[in-house]
């Protein structure tokens, strides 16, 4: 899967309003074990499902009515009965209507049945802030889903992440929530030979060091990994070398990767798009405090997050509601006292 179908954020936005008129929410059912190949049917939203229905037809790519609670429950039931569905939410904001099915029906069933019933389902869709979509369409759900035992939660940044994590999610016999990002759909990434191969899979639960550094560790997920890398290249000109870690998985979190990095750099900043309270960064900081890496910190760990406010519409306000590159640079300099 080489490309996130390239469209700029603004035309994605236009397309989405169109599609609320002609609803396109896909539940792609994937053939169960014993039926041959399991194909990564990424029924991605906006344009991404284009071509899938043509190729696989009604039986495997299902266009649903706008009934999130209903179709999420149907997807979970189908998973319990032996299919391997990929259930798409147009954005994760709408998953709130179905969240009971994700948590109480999907996440907890294996435990409640003492391992009798597995739920091999993937819930995917865009998460977090887009551009100009305002408060009800901009929430980040990483912390909410990351809170729950029984779920796995992944958050891709690059095309390689998207492909490898989606394949891993589909192959996983457990419920996986895949938090994509609408603004990233339009961004092209290099894809290595290895990543282009048919069976390229990224293990769930392993972070990746996107950039090595020695002075400070920046830990992030999804779109803000890109912001961290931009900040790192600006800071490099001033002689500050940042190590940028792309979490890739929110739950189970690869805290060991962060710890190993802190042993090297002695400083930590977490960067996320979601709100600060009870968030991903808060969890990382708490775990670092509790673990061996605490003794290697030369300064308190710091969080860069979305502003603690429902997302406003006006561009000037919106720009101050999600972390900008300058906010990351400012934080780095504060932590390093430069």
């Amino acid at each position: 899967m080489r490309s996130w179908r390239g469209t700029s954020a603004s035309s994605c936005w236009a397309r989405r309003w169109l599609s609320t008129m002609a609803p396109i929410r896909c539940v792609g059912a994937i053939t169960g074990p014993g039926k041959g190949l399991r194909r990564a049917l990424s029924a991605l939203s906006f344009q991404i499902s284009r071509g899938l229905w043509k190729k696989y037809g009604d039986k495997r790519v299902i266009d649903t009515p706008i009934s999130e609670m209903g179709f999420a429950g149907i997807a979970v039931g189908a998973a319990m009965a032996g299919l391997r569905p990929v259930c798409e939410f147009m954005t994760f904001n709408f998953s709130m209507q179905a969240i009971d099915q994700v948590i109480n029906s999907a996440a907890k069933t294996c435990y409640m049945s003492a391992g009798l019933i597995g739920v091999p389902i993937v819930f995917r869709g865009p998460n977090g802030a887009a551009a100009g979509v305002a408060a009800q369409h901009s929430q980040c759900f990483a912390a909410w889903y990351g809170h729950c035992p029984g779920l796995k939660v992944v958050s891709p940044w690059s095309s390689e992440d998207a492909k490898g994590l989606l394949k891993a999610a589909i192959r996983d016999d457990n419920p996986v929530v895949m938090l994509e990002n609408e603004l990233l759909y339009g961004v092209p990434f290099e894809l290595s030979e290895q990543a282009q191969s048919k069976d390229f899979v990224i293990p769930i639960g392993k972070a990746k060091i996107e950039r090595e550094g020695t002075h400070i560790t920046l830990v992030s997920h999804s779109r803000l990994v890109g912001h961290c890398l931009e900040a790192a290249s600006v800071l490099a000109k001033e002689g500050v070398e940042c190590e940028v870690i792309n979490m890739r998985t929110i739950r189970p979190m690869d805290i060991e990767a962060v710890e190993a990095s802190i042993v090297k750099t002695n400083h930590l900043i977490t960067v996320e798009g979601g709100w600060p309270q009870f968030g991903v960064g808060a969890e990382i900081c708490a775990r670092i405090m509790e673990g061996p890496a605490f003794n290697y910190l030369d300064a308190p760990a710091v969080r860069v997050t979305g502003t603690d406010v429902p997302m406003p519409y006006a561009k000037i306000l919106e720009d101050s509601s999600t972390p900008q590159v300058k906010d990351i640079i400012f934080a780095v300099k504060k932590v390093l006292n430069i």
Partner: protein
Amino acid sequence: ASRVMVASRNYADFANEATFEIKKCDLHRLEEGPSTTTVMTREEGLQYYRTMQIIRRMELKSDQMYKQKIIRGFCHLYDGQEACCVGLEAAIKPTDHVITAYRAHGFTYTRGVPVREILAELTGRKGGCAKGKGGSMHMYTKNFYGGNGIVGAQVPLGAGVALACKYFGKNEICLTLYGDGAANQGQIFETYNMAALWKLPCIFICENNRYGMGTSVERAAASTEYYRRGDFIPGLRVDGMDVLCVREAGKFAAEYCRSGKGPIVMELQTYRYHGHSMSDPGISYRTREEIQEVRSKSDPITLLKDRMVNNNLASIEELKDIDAAVKKEVEEAAQFATTDPEPPLEELCNHIYFNEPPFEVRGANQWIKYKSVS
């Protein structure tokens, strides 16, 4: 004095089968309904009788154990509604699928879980069908998806199971049960729409026992004709206290679904003797007289017994023997459920994931760690 044989019991004296008139079902968007006569064999009758008695005894035993505080938390009892699960099970195959809500002990039994495993699950022991980790509302077995605690959530799940049935093409169907209280949930209407749109082989079954927790149907629903609530989906209203009526309607509905026509709704008019759960005495919103009237005039087990005896399918003594055997089985199961040990602490964090390599789980503080295996 010579010995004279006063009476003898000879099984050749019984009839092999008998034909019964059953109540006509109310129909919605259907030209024809289930037959109003049905044949029941002696063997079938004895099996239905035994099964309903086991469930009755099991539920009463649970009541007792709950009051002794050996069962904790939620306990929603099914006594009074036995004809529903027994009749439905008689109408379908073991390879069909069933999902229901929290008043699930009856179906758990008819779907194949032994009484001792049900009671041990209620008492939270390792011999319970979910190793003690699920409790009353979370019992599962092959082709039975629980046992669901969130009112109405099981309905989309059931349609999903039906979708899988259709996909695999093995002519299986899914019975998706819910109560009169759940019938007002929005997600059920979302599910009706999708099931009808995609012609899912799903039988939506409303077990209308007249009360959603403590609220009577008249006070909860603008329309209490639950068999019509599927609107564009055909429906049947069935006497849920008559096991044969439920069986015939179940067969009718199963055939409808299997023929590819799509979903169908069944409303079973039934009654629960207990309150909503063990925390509800069940008499603040209904009268003792009403409960007594149902018991004396419509009890499903008594109805079946009278039919069998009056039609020479069984004798009173024979049924009494079954009662004694059932009592013994339930007593032994209860004995097991009170003496089996609780699950070991090592079990605490197992089965968080399915088919996963072992991993560590955080306990109450960072120094307490558990292992999780699948």
